[in-house]
Every structure is written in structure tokens, then in C-alpha cells.
């Protein structure tokens, strides 16, 4: 046998050194069935042994919207724009915020929550956070449907929603949803990688997400915040989630303004976070089992 001939047909090599990004897309593609099965598992098992089952998908955003409307709009009198029901305004904010935050929290414990299985068998680790984003997309889809139902109700059965008109920019909605997902995924992957060594972050994520919600213009319009608290407005304004939520409300309800630069800003930030997340995640996945 010739040595030259035989050294070439090694299928793969396990070695310690790694390139900066070592993503084997072919391998991820080979494991695509696993992605779908993980999604299926998440969707089926989440509400097993509950009485209301998938109804919980509706209950969460609806109740939160009702509470927000009561507190922020009726009690604190935050204006949501003429001819736009506050409830609808809040539902739009919460629906889009929920998708981002569930992607973030769902992926931020990838390594710690799955160490049992990661410690036993190899598959491209990135499948796990991806499956979280996809199964949350399904949940988001259902919630978007709820939002649409309420929207139609307000438009056709009441006269409160005369100004709630979807804008042409709604064609960009799928892209915007992708940005939300990528942003949550990227952020979550960064946190999940760092938590393998520094557990402090797990505590931070819990209330950090909540704090971030208040800084993301979920229950108030950005313009109102700028008008009332101008000195801290930058904090909210440069938060990419604010941009995303404002854009979402503009597309669906026609409130706020739309600019391509905002849209690009959201996209740029999301993709940057996603790439950084991917690199860090990739670096962590090989060694984490020794530190976790």
C-alpha cells in the first residue's frame, strides 16, 4: 500500500486545535432531521399534562396585554396614539418582545441544561439553540395569529381602530422576524458559552431580560419617552430591540416612523450578534464538558 494513498482517505480527524470558525455546514445539514425532532419534542412536551394545553400560548400574551393596558395606559396614561387601541398596541409589543426574549432565555442555558446529553454523544451542538429558535417561531406564529384576530376584531367590530392601518413595509416583516430570532439566538449563544465558566450570568439573565424589556419600548412609544425623559432617551433609542419593536408596530399598526436606516441598523446589530455568538459558541462547544 502506498502511504500517500492511504493518508488521504481518513474520514475525519479529532484534534485539539481549532480554527476561528469551524462550522461544518455539511454536517449540520446531515443532522437536519434532528433539528426537526428537537422542535417536535419541544412543541409536544411543553404543555403535556396540562389541562389547557396549547391554550397557554394565547393566555400569556393576552393577560400581559390586559395588565399593561390597565397599568400603563389607564393608570399611568401613556398615550398610544390616536385611533389605536392601547390593548392592540401592547399586544403588538408583547408578541414581538416575547419572541426575542424566549429565544434569548431558551438558548442562554444551552450548555448547562443539556450537559447530560452533550456529555454522552456528539452532534453539531448548534442544532440545540437553533431548535429553540425554530420552536419559538411556531409559538410566535400562533401568537401572531391571535394578534391578527384581535386586530380584525378592533377594525371591523369597533370604531376605536380607525388609524390602525398596516403599512406597505409589512412585506419586510419576515425579514424583521428573522432579525429578532438572530438577535435572540446570537445573544443567547454568547451567554450560554460564558455561563459554562462564569455562572454569574445565569442570575443576570433572569432579571436582565426583564429590565431590558422596560428599555425596549414595549409598553410605550419611543417618541413619548423622548418627549418625557430626553436625557435618557439614547438608552432606549440605541437599543436594537426598540428599533425592532417600533418597526414591528409601524408595519402592522402604522404607528411611529419607518426609515430604512433603522431597519438596516436592526439588521446589522442582529447579524453581528449572531456571528459573534456563533464564534464563541463554536469555541466553547469542544471544551465545555470539562468546565461545566
Amino acid at each position, binding site marked *: *500500500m502506498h502511504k500517500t494513498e492511504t493518508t488521504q482517505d481518513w*474520514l475525519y480527524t*479529532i484534534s*485539539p486545535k481549532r480554527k476561528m470558525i469551524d462550522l461544518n455546514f455539511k454536517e449540520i445539514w446531515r443532522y437536519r432531521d434532528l433539528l426537526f425532532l428537537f422542535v417536535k*419534542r419541544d412543541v*409536544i412536551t411543553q404543555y403535556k399534562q396540562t389541562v389547557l394545553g396549547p391554550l397557554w400560548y394565547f393566555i400569556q400574551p393576552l393577560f400581559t396585554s390586559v395588565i399593561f393596558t390597565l397599568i400603563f395606559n389607564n393608570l399611568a396614561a401613556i398615550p398610544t396614539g390616536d385611533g389605536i387601541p392601547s390593548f392592540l398596541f401592547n399586544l403588538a409589543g408583547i408578541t414581538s418582545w416575547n419572541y426575542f426574549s424566549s429565544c434569548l432565555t431558551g438558548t442562554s442555558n444551552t450548555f448547562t441544561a443539556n450537559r447530560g446529553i452533550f456529555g454522552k*454523544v*456528539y452532534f453539531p451542538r448548534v442544532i440545540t439553540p437553533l431548535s429553540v429558535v425554530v420552536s419559538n417561531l411556531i409559538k410566535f406564529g400562533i401568537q401572531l395569529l391571535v394578534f391578527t384576530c384581535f386586530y380584525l376584531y378592533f377594525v371591523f367590530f369597533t370604531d376605536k381602530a380607525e388609524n390602525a392601518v398596516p403599512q406597505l413595509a409589512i412585506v419586510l416583516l419576515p425579514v424583521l422576524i428573522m432579525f429578532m430570532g438572530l438577535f435572540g439566538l446570537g445573544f443567547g449563544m454568547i451567554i450560554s458559552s460564558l455561563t459554562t465558566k*462564569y455562572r454569574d450570568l445565569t442570575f443576570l439573565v433572569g432579571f436582565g431580560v426583564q429590565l431590558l424589556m422596560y428599555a425596549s419600548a414595549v409598553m410605550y412609544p419611543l417618541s413619548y419617552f423622548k418627549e418625557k425623559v430626553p436625557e435618557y432617551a439614547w438608552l432606549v433609542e440605541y437599543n436594537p430591540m426598540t428599533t425592532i419593536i417600533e418597526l414591528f408596530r409601524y408595519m402592522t399598526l402604522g404607528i411611529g416612523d419607518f426609515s430604512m436606516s433603522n431597519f438596516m441598523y436592526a439588521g446589522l446589530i442582529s447579524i453581528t450578534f449572531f456571528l459573534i455568538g456563533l464564534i464563541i459558541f463554536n469555541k466553547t462547544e469542544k471544551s465545555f464538558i470539562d468546565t461545566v
Partner: protein
Amino acid sequence: MKEQDIILKATNISKQYRLGVVGTGTISHDLNRWWSSIRGKDDPYLKVGESNDRSTKGESEYVWALKDINFEVKKGEVLGVIGKNGAGKSTLLKILSKVTGPTTGEIKTRGRIASLLEVGTGFHGEMTGRENIFLNGAILGMSKKEIKSKIDEIIEFSGCQRYIDTPVKRYSSGMTVRLAFAVAAFLEPEILVIDEVLAVGDVEFQKKAIGKMQDISRGEGRTVLFVSHNMAAVKSLCTRGIVLENGKIVFEGDSNASINFYLDNAYKMSSKPIFERKDRKGNFKLKIQDIYAENHQAIRVGELHSGEEYKIVFEYKKFKDIIPKQFTIVLQFKNENDEIVNTIATDEIGTVFNHIKDEGRIEIQIPKLQFREGNYSMNYMISEKPSFNTPHVVIDYLQDAFAMQVLKGDYWKSGILNRPKGFIQEASINIA
């Protein structure tokens, strides 16, 4: 050996672990590492590691779980990896199955490696057996189509037909293993890695599993790496073996030779005076100083004969007070395959001690030795135990503490020497 036949080749595999608590100091270590990598130097913490001897306390906080492991596996070979707890077997398997990376060295393979999950990892309790077969198969790298084409065989092999549409959380642990093994057995990787799964499951299933593994390697020409404490399974399954000790390969050869080497080593250990042993555990309120056997004339003997009267003597020294009523001794006897074959336990017998002197002898009376010819090794555990169902508080525990060589004897006083292997059962036989 033809180069083409080698399906897996490991060169200089080492794995370093950090001892103690991970967390404090990691930032500074990380920064040091980063700083030396910037200057193009080696990782400063790679030099300090020591060999992985559990029982001696090392200087540095880094330790080599594996050090310079080199081996080759041929196609269709069943390689047994044997070694004591902590010898580095599982680490090696983890590296092979890509769960964790090696610190140095590389492994080249010519085929897909799949590892058999331990009991039910990757199973989701809320999902049915059938759903879990798909999930588990996909985790192991099968496509949905592949699983679909084999699902009937998998279910049949697992023997869980009746429960297949029941959530796995209602399964017994044995059933979960059956299902897990069934999925992996029908996986078609070129290299299958198996870690001690056979310990669970009943005898019938173990036979089935071993049979299946033989089929896999012999019939289908696939390669298996098998890690186990079960010497009988290694013997019947493996064609070749490697023995690991403290992270190094100490022996490589055909499976019988490897098993003998491993057991000889364990046997040698048990012939070593016990005060020199460092692998003892417990709070040492009392410490065993010496163990030996005496015959009926109170003379120390090295070889025992079946059917004779003996005393096993433990000389002890007491260092702290022990409540005599809670004092428990458990002895386990192991055969040459490292299987426990007999146990003597005072809490089972119901022996209650009234007084423990500061120094003395514990004597275990054996009126008629029922062991047949062979080499046996004894573990002892001395503990305090308030009642039968409460856990032991270990005072002194040692594995392979005493080696016992038993020779043929005349148990029945019939003039015929007893056959080797196993036990002599007290019996009388009639035809009616």
C-alpha cells in the same frame, strides 16, 4: 498489518483536567493562557500536569487523565478497554466520541463513530417509546428515513412492543436500556463505542446484546470499542484488549492476555501489605493493620483448601470511640473475572458486638470453606451503621485487600477432590 485495514488511529492522545473548584482563578488563568498564545508560546498550564494517580496527593492542580495514548484499531476488530475506576477509560471514550477534545494529539478515523448512550440519556420522559426511537436515532446521527426503515426491527429487538406507545417515564430502567441499546444496535456506524451498558438489563437481554455485538463485528465487519468492568463480557466479545492504568496504556494484546494482565495486577495489589496501601477510604476511627488466614491449628497459611476449617483474621487498632452496637463488617469475595461471588456481612447475620478494644483481632470463623479451586480477592468495609436500613458511615474500606488462593480439597470427605470453579453447595441427594 496493512495500512488500509486500520480504521482508527490514535497518536499521542493526552487529556488534561484541572482539579479542584473551577471558578476561582479561571479569569486569571484564562488571561495567562491568552497572553502566552499571543506571544506564540505554549500554554503555561500544560507543563505542570502530573500523572493521574488518585490515591496520592499531587503538587499541581492540573492532572493528566490520559497521557500519550497510542493505539490502532483494525477494521472488524472488537477492542476491549479495561482498567480500574479512574484509569482514564471514560475519558478516552469521550474523546473518541467527540464529546470532549483531547489536549494534545489526534485521532484519525476512516469511519463514522457512534457511541452508545448510557441509560436513557437523550430520552425524553414525556415522549413515547416510538417517538424516542426517532429522537435518539437522530441524536446518534441517523436520518429519519433510515430509522423509519428499521423501526420494526428496533422495536422487536428491544422487546418493548407492548409499551412502545407509552411515555418512557413509565418504563423501568431495564426497559429504557433495552430501548436505548436497540436503537444503537441498528445504527450503522463503522465504529461503535460502548461503555458499560450491559450492567443493566436482565441476563436474557445481556446475552442478546452480546450476541448482537458479535453479529455487528463478525457478521457485518464493523468495529466495536468496548469498555467494561465485566471481564466475562470482555472475554466473550473482544478480540483484542488494552489495559489502562493512571491514564497510560500498560498492556496491549489479545483479549485473554489483557484480562490476565489486569487481573494479575489486581491480585498483586491484594498481596501487597495493607498498611502500604494508599487507596483506603473512610474516617479511620479504626484501622486494619493486617489480614491473614489461619488454619485450625492457628498457623498462618497462604493457600487454603476447600472443605477445611479456617479463620480470617483482621488485626486492628482503634483510634477513636466507636459504638460497638453499630459496628459492621462486610466482606466481599471476587473471582478471577472481578465478579463478586460471595458476601459475608455482620448486619445480615445479626452479629452484635459489645466491646471493641483499643487493639485486637477480628476473627471470621469459617467452619468449612465452600470456595472451589481458584484465585479470589477480598474487599472489606468496616463501618458504623445505626440500623439495617440506614446508610453506612465508612470507617475503613479497601478493595482487593486480601488475596486468597484456594486449592482443591476434599469437602465431602469422600476421597475425591472437588472440581474447580464456583461454590460447593451443602446438599444431600435422595431418589424417592
